[in-house]
Protein backbone atom coordinates (compact mmCIF):
# COMPACT_ATOMS: atom_id res chain seq x y z
CA UNK A 1 0.00 0.00 0.00
CA UNK A 2 2.77 2.39 0.95
CA UNK A 3 4.69 1.48 -2.21
CA UNK A 4 1.59 2.11 -4.33
CA UNK A 5 1.12 5.54 -2.78
CA UNK A 6 4.78 6.40 -3.26
CA UNK A 7 4.66 5.27 -6.89
CA UNK A 8 1.56 7.40 -7.48
CA UNK A 9 3.11 10.49 -5.96
CA UNK A 10 6.61 10.07 -7.35
CA UNK A 11 5.79 8.46 -10.68
CA UNK A 12 2.63 10.35 -11.62
CA UNK A 13 1.89 13.40 -9.49
CA UNK A 14 -0.68 14.78 -11.96
CA UNK A 15 -4.30 15.85 -11.63
CA UNK A 16 -6.57 13.16 -13.15
CA UNK A 17 -9.31 14.13 -15.60
CA UNK A 18 -7.70 17.42 -16.56
CA UNK A 19 -5.92 17.29 -19.90
CA UNK A 20 -4.43 14.21 -21.49
CA UNK A 21 -0.67 14.43 -21.14
CA UNK A 22 1.18 11.23 -20.27
CA UNK A 23 1.04 11.76 -16.52
CA UNK A 24 -2.64 12.68 -16.46
CA UNK A 25 -3.41 9.66 -18.64
CA UNK A 26 -1.57 7.39 -16.17
CA UNK A 27 -3.45 8.95 -13.27
CA UNK A 28 -6.74 8.44 -15.12
CA UNK A 29 -5.88 4.79 -15.80
CA UNK A 30 -4.89 4.25 -12.17
CA UNK A 31 -8.27 5.51 -10.95
CA UNK A 32 -10.12 3.59 -13.66
CA UNK A 33 -8.48 0.29 -12.65
CA UNK A 34 -9.07 0.96 -8.96
CA UNK A 35 -12.73 1.69 -9.66
CA UNK A 36 -13.17 -1.58 -11.57
CA UNK A 37 -11.46 -3.59 -8.84
CA UNK A 38 -13.45 -2.02 -5.99
CA UNK A 39 -16.76 -2.39 -7.85
CA UNK A 40 -16.05 -6.05 -8.52
CA UNK A 41 -14.98 -6.57 -4.89
CA UNK A 42 -18.35 -5.30 -3.64
CA UNK A 43 -20.50 -6.92 -6.35
CA UNK A 44 -21.48 -3.62 -7.97
CA UNK A 45 -22.38 -4.27 -11.61
CA UNK A 46 -21.77 -0.71 -12.89
CA UNK A 47 -18.30 0.53 -11.81
CA UNK A 48 -19.17 4.11 -12.83
CA UNK A 49 -21.38 4.18 -9.72
CA UNK A 50 -18.43 3.38 -7.45
CA UNK A 51 -17.50 6.80 -6.05
CA UNK A 52 -14.30 7.68 -4.23
CA UNK A 53 -14.90 9.96 -1.24
CA UNK A 54 -12.73 11.37 1.57
CA UNK A 55 -14.02 8.65 3.91
CA UNK A 56 -16.94 6.59 5.14
CA UNK A 57 -18.48 9.52 7.06
CA UNK A 58 -18.61 11.56 3.84
CA UNK A 59 -20.12 8.59 2.02
CA UNK A 60 -22.81 8.21 4.69
CA UNK A 61 -23.63 11.91 4.48
CA UNK A 62 -24.03 11.76 0.71
CA UNK A 63 -26.11 8.58 0.98
CA UNK A 64 -28.50 10.01 3.58
CA UNK A 65 -28.68 13.66 2.54
CA UNK A 66 -28.73 12.77 -1.14
CA UNK A 67 -31.73 10.45 -0.93
CA UNK A 68 -33.92 11.62 1.97
CA UNK A 69 -35.85 14.82 2.63
CA UNK A 70 -37.52 16.55 5.58
CA UNK A 71 -40.45 14.53 6.92
CA UNK A 72 -39.09 11.19 5.73
CA UNK A 73 -38.91 8.40 8.29
CA UNK A 74 -35.98 6.01 8.59
CA UNK A 75 -35.31 2.87 10.59
CA UNK A 76 -31.80 2.49 11.98
CA UNK A 77 -30.24 0.06 14.43
CA UNK A 78 -29.29 0.56 18.06
CA UNK A 79 -25.64 0.12 17.12
CA UNK A 80 -25.32 3.42 15.23
CA UNK A 81 -21.97 5.14 14.93
CA UNK A 82 -22.21 8.94 15.06
CA UNK A 83 -21.50 9.05 11.32
CA UNK A 84 -25.10 7.85 11.01
CA UNK A 85 -26.72 9.20 14.19
CA UNK A 86 -25.43 12.76 13.89
CA UNK A 87 -26.64 12.80 10.29
CA UNK A 88 -30.11 11.30 10.77
CA UNK A 89 -30.71 13.45 13.88
CA UNK A 90 -29.45 16.64 12.20
CA UNK A 91 -32.37 19.06 12.71
CA UNK A 92 -31.64 20.77 9.39
CA UNK A 93 -32.43 17.51 7.65
CA UNK A 94 -35.68 16.96 9.55
CA UNK A 95 -35.89 13.16 9.48
CA UNK A 96 -37.96 11.02 11.84
CA UNK A 97 -35.88 8.16 13.20
CA UNK A 98 -36.75 4.81 14.78
CA UNK A 99 -33.83 2.74 16.07
CA UNK A 100 -34.60 -0.97 15.87
CA UNK A 101 -33.35 -2.91 18.89
CA UNK A 102 -32.32 -6.43 18.03
CA UNK A 103 -31.55 -9.29 20.39
CA UNK A 104 -28.86 -11.14 18.48
CA UNK A 105 -30.02 -14.47 19.88
CA UNK A 106 -33.22 -14.12 17.85
CA UNK A 107 -33.51 -14.06 14.05
CA UNK A 108 -34.21 -10.66 12.54
CA UNK A 109 -37.67 -10.58 10.96
CA UNK A 110 -39.80 -8.50 8.64
CA UNK A 111 -42.30 -7.99 11.48
CA UNK A 112 -39.67 -6.16 13.53
CA UNK A 113 -39.31 -3.60 10.75
CA UNK A 114 -43.03 -3.44 10.06
CA UNK A 115 -43.62 -2.55 13.71
CA UNK A 116 -41.66 0.69 13.17
CA UNK A 117 -42.92 1.56 9.71
CA UNK A 118 -45.04 4.61 8.92
CA UNK A 119 -46.36 5.78 5.54
CA UNK A 120 -43.29 8.07 5.40
CA UNK A 121 -40.72 5.32 5.94
CA UNK A 122 -38.22 5.52 3.10
CA UNK A 123 -35.06 3.79 4.20
CA UNK A 124 -33.32 1.39 6.52
CA UNK A 125 -29.85 2.51 7.57
CA UNK A 126 -27.68 -0.20 9.08
CA UNK A 127 -24.27 -0.39 10.69
CA UNK A 128 -23.21 -3.71 9.22
CA UNK A 129 -20.88 -4.27 12.13
CA UNK A 130 -20.56 -2.53 15.49
CA UNK A 131 -17.28 -0.74 16.17
CA UNK A 132 -17.81 -1.31 19.90
CA UNK A 133 -18.71 -4.94 20.52
CA UNK A 134 -18.28 -6.38 17.03
CA UNK A 135 -21.92 -7.33 16.54
CA UNK A 136 -22.39 -8.34 12.92
CA UNK A 137 -25.84 -7.66 11.50
CA UNK A 138 -27.31 -10.30 9.14
CA UNK A 139 -27.22 -8.05 6.09
CA UNK A 140 -28.49 -10.72 3.75
CA UNK A 141 -31.69 -11.15 5.81
CA UNK A 142 -32.10 -7.39 6.15
CA UNK A 143 -31.64 -6.96 2.39
CA UNK A 144 -34.40 -9.46 1.71
CA UNK A 145 -36.69 -7.61 4.13
CA UNK A 146 -36.03 -4.13 2.69
CA UNK A 147 -36.60 -5.44 -0.83
CA UNK A 148 -39.86 -7.02 0.28
CA UNK A 149 -40.96 -3.80 1.98
CA UNK A 150 -39.78 -1.56 -0.87
CA UNK A 151 -37.36 0.39 1.34
CA UNK A 152 -33.97 1.80 0.45
CA UNK A 153 -31.13 -0.03 2.23
CA UNK A 154 -28.10 2.09 3.16
CA UNK A 155 -25.27 0.14 4.78
CA UNK A 156 -22.30 1.47 6.74
CA UNK A 157 -19.56 -1.10 6.22
CA UNK A 158 -16.80 0.79 8.03
CA UNK A 159 -16.13 -2.25 10.23
CA UNK A 160 -16.90 -4.99 7.71
CA UNK A 161 -15.56 -3.98 4.28
CA UNK A 162 -12.64 -6.29 3.62
CA UNK A 163 -13.44 -8.26 6.79
CA UNK A 164 -16.44 -10.30 5.65
CA UNK A 165 -17.58 -10.92 2.06
CA UNK A 166 -20.09 -8.32 0.84
CA UNK A 167 -21.98 -8.52 -2.44
CA UNK A 168 -24.30 -5.57 -3.03
CA UNK A 169 -26.43 -7.36 -5.60
CA UNK A 170 -26.80 -10.59 -3.61
CA UNK A 171 -27.22 -8.82 -0.25
CA UNK A 172 -29.78 -6.34 -1.59
CA UNK A 173 -27.71 -3.29 -0.63
CA UNK A 174 -28.81 -0.09 -2.41
CA UNK A 175 -26.03 2.15 -1.14
CA UNK A 176 -22.81 0.95 0.47
CA UNK A 177 -20.49 3.24 2.42
CA UNK A 178 -16.98 2.05 3.19
CA UNK A 179 -13.89 3.29 4.90
CA UNK A 180 -10.55 2.82 3.16
CA UNK A 181 -8.19 2.64 6.12
CA UNK A 182 -9.67 -0.22 8.17
CA UNK A 183 -10.41 -3.66 6.76
CA UNK A 184 -9.54 -2.57 3.24
CA UNK A 185 -5.89 -1.88 4.14
CA UNK A 186 -5.81 1.52 2.43
CA UNK A 187 -4.71 4.84 3.87
CA UNK A 188 -6.86 7.23 5.91
CA UNK A 189 -8.62 9.94 3.91
CA UNK A 190 -10.18 7.71 1.28
CA UNK A 191 -13.58 6.05 1.28
CA UNK A 192 -16.13 4.49 -1.02
CA UNK A 193 -19.73 5.27 -1.88
CA UNK A 194 -21.24 2.53 -4.05
CA UNK A 195 -24.67 3.16 -5.53
CA UNK A 196 -26.66 0.32 -7.04
CA UNK A 197 -28.06 0.84 -10.57
CA UNK A 198 -31.47 2.47 -10.48
CA UNK A 199 -30.93 4.25 -7.16
CA UNK A 200 -31.06 8.06 -7.44
CA UNK A 201 -28.74 10.10 -5.25
CA UNK A 202 -28.31 13.87 -5.32
CA UNK A 203 -24.72 15.09 -5.07
CA UNK A 204 -23.76 17.03 -1.93
CA UNK A 205 -20.71 18.79 -3.26
CA UNK A 206 -20.59 20.81 -6.48
CA UNK A 207 -17.62 21.98 -8.48
CA UNK A 208 -15.39 21.35 -11.47
CA UNK A 209 -15.30 17.91 -13.01
CA UNK A 210 -13.45 18.63 -16.25
CA UNK A 211 -16.65 17.73 -18.11
CA UNK A 212 -19.67 19.74 -19.31
CA UNK A 213 -17.88 22.83 -18.00
CA UNK A 214 -20.25 25.30 -19.69
CA UNK A 215 -23.22 23.83 -17.79
CA UNK A 216 -23.87 25.25 -14.31
CA UNK A 217 -25.58 22.05 -13.15
CA UNK A 218 -23.52 19.09 -12.04
CA UNK A 219 -23.18 16.42 -14.76
CA UNK A 220 -25.85 13.75 -14.64
CA UNK A 221 -23.30 11.08 -15.45
CA UNK A 222 -21.45 9.15 -12.81
CA UNK A 223 -18.77 9.14 -11.44
CA UNK A 224 -18.33 12.84 -12.35
CA UNK A 225 -21.63 13.77 -10.68
CA UNK A 226 -20.19 12.85 -7.28
CA UNK A 227 -16.49 13.56 -7.70
CA UNK A 228 -15.93 17.30 -8.23
CA UNK A 229 -12.52 18.75 -7.51
CA UNK A 230 -9.15 17.07 -7.60
CA UNK A 231 -9.35 13.44 -6.53
CA UNK A 232 -7.09 11.91 -3.89
CA UNK A 233 -5.40 9.71 -6.48
CA UNK A 234 -2.57 8.69 -4.15
CA UNK A 235 -5.17 7.55 -1.61
CA UNK A 236 -7.02 5.70 -4.35
CA UNK A 237 -3.75 3.99 -5.36
CA UNK A 238 -3.23 2.90 -1.75
CA UNK A 239 -6.79 1.66 -1.41
CA UNK A 240 -6.47 -0.29 -4.65
CA UNK A 241 -3.31 -1.96 -3.36
CA UNK A 242 -5.14 -2.80 -0.13
CA UNK A 243 -8.02 -4.47 -1.92
CA UNK A 244 -5.57 -6.32 -4.16
CA UNK A 245 -3.84 -7.60 -1.01
CA UNK A 246 -7.16 -8.94 0.29
CA UNK A 247 -7.93 -10.60 -3.05
CA UNK A 248 -4.50 -12.21 -3.20
CA UNK A 249 -4.48 -13.32 0.44
CA UNK A 250 -8.13 -14.34 0.70
CA UNK A 251 -10.72 -12.58 2.84
CA UNK A 252 -11.55 -15.80 4.71
CA UNK A 253 -7.89 -16.39 5.59
CA UNK A 254 -7.51 -12.84 6.88
CA UNK A 255 -10.74 -13.15 8.88
CA UNK A 256 -9.71 -16.51 10.36
CA UNK A 257 -6.34 -15.20 11.49
CA UNK A 258 -7.84 -12.11 13.13
CA UNK A 259 -10.64 -14.17 14.73
CA UNK A 260 -8.20 -16.77 16.09
CA UNK A 261 -6.17 -14.01 17.74
CA UNK A 262 -9.36 -12.39 19.02
CA UNK A 263 -10.59 -15.68 20.52
CA UNK A 264 -7.24 -16.20 22.20
CA UNK A 265 -7.42 -12.72 23.73
CA UNK A 266 -11.01 -13.33 24.81
CA UNK A 267 -10.28 -16.69 26.39
CA UNK A 268 -7.21 -15.26 28.10
CA UNK A 269 -9.12 -12.59 30.00
CA UNK A 270 -12.73 -13.80 30.21
CA UNK A 271 -12.18 -15.55 33.55
CA UNK A 272 -10.14 -12.80 35.15
CA UNK A 273 -11.92 -11.46 38.20
CA UNK A 274 -13.79 -8.20 37.52
CA UNK A 275 -13.22 -8.29 33.76
CA UNK A 276 -16.43 -7.79 31.82
CA UNK A 277 -16.45 -8.53 28.12
CA UNK A 278 -18.88 -7.18 25.54
CA UNK A 279 -19.05 -9.55 22.57
CA UNK A 280 -22.05 -11.23 20.87
CA UNK A 281 -22.93 -14.64 22.26
CA UNK A 282 -23.37 -16.27 18.88
CA UNK A 283 -20.15 -16.86 17.00
CA UNK A 284 -21.88 -16.21 13.66
CA UNK A 285 -22.65 -12.66 14.83
CA UNK A 286 -19.09 -11.81 15.85
CA UNK A 287 -16.49 -9.65 14.18
CA UNK A 288 -12.86 -10.03 15.29
CA UNK A 289 -13.07 -7.27 17.90
CA UNK A 290 -14.55 -6.91 21.37
CA UNK A 291 -14.82 -4.45 24.23
CA UNK A 292 -14.06 -4.95 27.89
CA UNK A 293 -13.90 -3.19 31.24
CA UNK A 294 -11.94 -4.02 34.39
CA UNK A 295 -14.12 -3.44 37.46
CA UNK A 296 -14.64 0.28 37.98
CA UNK A 297 -11.26 1.28 36.54
CA UNK A 298 -11.69 4.10 34.06
CA UNK A 299 -11.24 2.70 30.53
CA UNK A 300 -8.78 5.53 29.82
CA UNK A 301 -6.60 4.32 32.70
CA UNK A 302 -6.78 0.77 31.35
CA UNK A 303 -5.71 2.01 27.92
CA UNK A 304 -2.90 4.07 29.41
CA UNK A 305 -1.59 1.04 31.28
CA UNK A 306 -1.71 -1.07 28.11
CA UNK A 307 0.00 1.62 26.05
CA UNK A 308 2.60 3.04 28.43
CA UNK A 309 3.67 -0.21 30.07
CA UNK A 310 3.18 -2.70 27.24
CA UNK A 311 3.01 -0.76 23.96
CA UNK A 312 -0.48 -2.06 23.22
CA UNK A 313 -2.79 0.34 21.35
CA UNK A 314 -6.52 0.14 22.10
CA UNK A 315 -9.45 2.52 21.67
CA UNK A 316 -11.37 3.70 24.71
CA UNK A 317 -14.43 5.69 25.71
CA UNK A 318 -17.64 5.85 23.72
CA UNK A 319 -16.06 5.10 20.34
CA UNK A 320 -18.28 7.79 18.70
CA UNK A 321 -21.14 5.36 19.32
CA UNK A 322 -23.11 6.49 22.41
CA UNK A 323 -26.26 4.59 21.34
CA UNK A 324 -24.31 1.35 21.22
CA UNK A 325 -22.96 1.87 24.72
CA UNK A 326 -26.48 2.63 25.95
CA UNK A 327 -27.69 -0.60 24.38
CA UNK A 328 -24.94 -2.78 25.81
CA UNK A 329 -25.00 -1.08 29.22
CA UNK A 330 -21.61 0.61 29.23
CA UNK A 331 -22.80 4.21 28.93
CA UNK A 332 -21.49 6.81 29.84
CA UNK A 333 -18.09 5.45 30.92
CA UNK A 334 -17.52 3.39 27.81
CA UNK A 335 -15.15 0.48 27.32
CA UNK A 336 -11.74 -0.53 26.02
CA UNK A 337 -11.86 -2.04 22.53
CA UNK A 338 -9.44 -4.68 21.32
CA UNK A 339 -9.15 -5.46 17.62
CA UNK A 340 -6.25 -7.70 16.59
CA UNK A 341 -4.86 -7.15 13.12
CA UNK A 342 -3.67 -9.60 10.48
CA UNK A 343 -0.05 -8.78 11.29
CA UNK A 344 -0.38 -9.22 15.05
CA UNK A 345 1.36 -12.27 16.52
CA UNK A 346 0.29 -14.69 19.23
CA UNK A 347 3.04 -13.21 21.40
CA UNK A 348 1.21 -9.85 21.18
CA UNK A 349 -1.93 -11.51 22.52
CA UNK A 350 -0.01 -13.17 25.35
CA UNK A 351 1.40 -9.76 26.26
CA UNK A 352 -2.12 -8.31 26.23
CA UNK A 353 -3.47 -11.04 28.53
CA UNK A 354 -0.59 -10.53 30.96
CA UNK A 355 -1.21 -6.77 30.97
CA UNK A 356 -4.91 -7.16 31.78
CA UNK A 357 -4.08 -9.65 34.55
CA UNK A 358 -1.77 -7.04 36.08
CA UNK A 359 -4.65 -4.57 36.19
CA UNK A 360 -6.90 -7.04 37.94
CA UNK A 361 -4.25 -7.80 40.57
CA UNK A 362 -3.63 -4.06 41.07
CA UNK A 363 -7.31 -3.50 41.62
CA UNK A 364 -7.48 -6.20 44.27
CA UNK A 365 -4.60 -4.69 46.27
Amino acid at each position, binding site marked *: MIRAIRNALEGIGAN*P*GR*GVDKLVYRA*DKLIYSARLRAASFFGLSDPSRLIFTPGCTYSINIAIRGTLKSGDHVITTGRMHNAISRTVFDKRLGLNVSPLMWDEKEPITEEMFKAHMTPETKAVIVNHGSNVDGLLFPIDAIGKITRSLGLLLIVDTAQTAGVVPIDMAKNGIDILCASGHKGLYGPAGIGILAISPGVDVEPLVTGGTGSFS*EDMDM*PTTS*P*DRFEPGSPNFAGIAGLDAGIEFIQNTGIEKIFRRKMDLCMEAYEGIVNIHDVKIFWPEKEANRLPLFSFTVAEIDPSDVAEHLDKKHGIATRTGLHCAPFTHQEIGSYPIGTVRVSPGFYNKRSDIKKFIKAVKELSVKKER
Partner: protein
Amino acid sequence: MSDCIAVFATTYETLRAEDFFRAEKIKFKPILKPRKIGSACRMALKFSEKDIEAAKRAVSAGNLDILSFYRKENDTWEKILGRILP
Protein backbone atom coordinates in the same frame (compact mmCIF):
# COMPACT_ATOMS: atom_id res chain seq x y z
CA MET B 1 -9.36 9.65 -45.23
CA SER B 2 -10.05 12.27 -42.56
CA ASP B 3 -9.47 12.05 -38.85
CA CYS B 4 -12.40 11.33 -36.59
CA ILE B 5 -12.77 11.70 -32.85
CA ALA B 6 -15.14 10.15 -30.37
CA VAL B 7 -16.15 12.20 -27.33
CA PHE B 8 -17.64 10.41 -24.33
CA ALA B 9 -19.54 11.67 -21.29
CA THR B 10 -16.78 11.07 -18.74
CA THR B 11 -13.15 10.09 -18.51
CA TYR B 12 -14.32 6.80 -17.03
CA GLU B 13 -16.44 6.17 -20.11
CA THR B 14 -13.58 7.12 -22.45
CA LEU B 15 -11.24 4.64 -20.78
CA ARG B 16 -13.94 2.01 -20.95
CA ALA B 17 -14.34 2.80 -24.66
CA GLU B 18 -10.66 2.06 -25.26
CA ASP B 19 -11.24 -1.61 -24.51
CA PHE B 20 -14.10 -1.82 -27.00
CA PHE B 21 -12.12 0.06 -29.67
CA ARG B 22 -9.27 -2.41 -29.17
CA ALA B 23 -11.70 -5.31 -29.52
CA GLU B 24 -12.74 -3.87 -32.90
CA LYS B 25 -9.02 -3.53 -33.81
CA ILE B 26 -9.36 0.22 -34.25
CA LYS B 27 -6.11 2.16 -34.11
CA PHE B 28 -6.78 5.13 -31.85
CA LYS B 29 -4.97 7.75 -29.85
CA PRO B 30 -6.20 9.51 -26.71
CA ILE B 31 -6.09 13.25 -27.35
CA LEU B 32 -7.23 16.39 -25.62
CA LYS B 33 -10.69 17.28 -26.89
CA PRO B 34 -10.24 20.10 -29.46
CA ARG B 35 -11.26 23.51 -28.13
CA LYS B 36 -13.41 24.10 -31.23
CA ILE B 37 -15.76 21.35 -30.06
CA GLY B 38 -16.33 22.57 -26.53
CA SER B 39 -14.83 23.89 -23.38
CA ALA B 40 -14.18 20.70 -21.48
CA CYS B 41 -10.53 19.99 -20.79
CA ARG B 42 -10.66 16.26 -21.23
CA MET B 43 -9.90 13.26 -23.29
CA ALA B 44 -11.29 12.11 -26.63
CA LEU B 45 -10.31 9.19 -28.85
CA LYS B 46 -8.88 10.01 -32.29
CA PHE B 47 -9.08 7.45 -35.08
CA SER B 48 -9.23 7.19 -38.86
CA GLU B 49 -12.48 7.74 -40.75
CA LYS B 50 -12.06 4.29 -42.26
CA ASP B 51 -12.88 2.84 -38.83
CA ILE B 52 -16.07 4.79 -38.25
CA GLU B 53 -18.35 1.77 -38.70
CA ALA B 54 -16.17 -0.28 -36.36
CA ALA B 55 -16.29 2.59 -33.87
CA LYS B 56 -20.08 2.57 -34.02
CA ARG B 57 -20.02 -1.17 -33.37
CA ALA B 58 -17.73 -0.61 -30.38
CA VAL B 59 -20.14 1.97 -28.96
CA SER B 60 -23.02 -0.42 -29.39
CA ALA B 61 -21.14 -3.43 -27.97
CA GLY B 62 -20.07 -1.49 -24.88
CA ASN B 63 -23.34 0.40 -24.48
CA LEU B 64 -21.00 3.41 -24.28
CA ASP B 65 -22.29 6.83 -23.30
CA ILE B 66 -20.94 8.70 -26.33
CA LEU B 67 -21.65 12.41 -26.74
CA SER B 68 -20.67 12.51 -30.39
CA PHE B 69 -18.42 11.41 -33.21
CA TYR B 70 -16.75 14.23 -35.15
CA ARG B 71 -15.02 14.21 -38.55
CA LYS B 72 -12.38 16.76 -39.51
CA GLU B 73 -13.46 18.84 -42.51
CA ASN B 74 -10.73 21.30 -43.53
CA ASP B 75 -10.13 23.09 -40.26
CA THR B 76 -13.41 22.34 -38.54
CA TRP B 77 -14.91 19.36 -36.76
CA GLU B 78 -18.24 18.23 -38.14
CA LYS B 79 -20.57 16.33 -35.83
CA ILE B 80 -21.49 13.09 -37.54
CA LEU B 81 -23.45 11.32 -34.81
CA GLY B 82 -25.03 12.79 -31.73
CA ARG B 83 -25.48 11.22 -28.33
CA ILE B 84 -27.08 7.87 -28.85
CA LEU B 85 -27.72 6.99 -25.25
CA PRO B 86 -29.77 8.98 -22.72
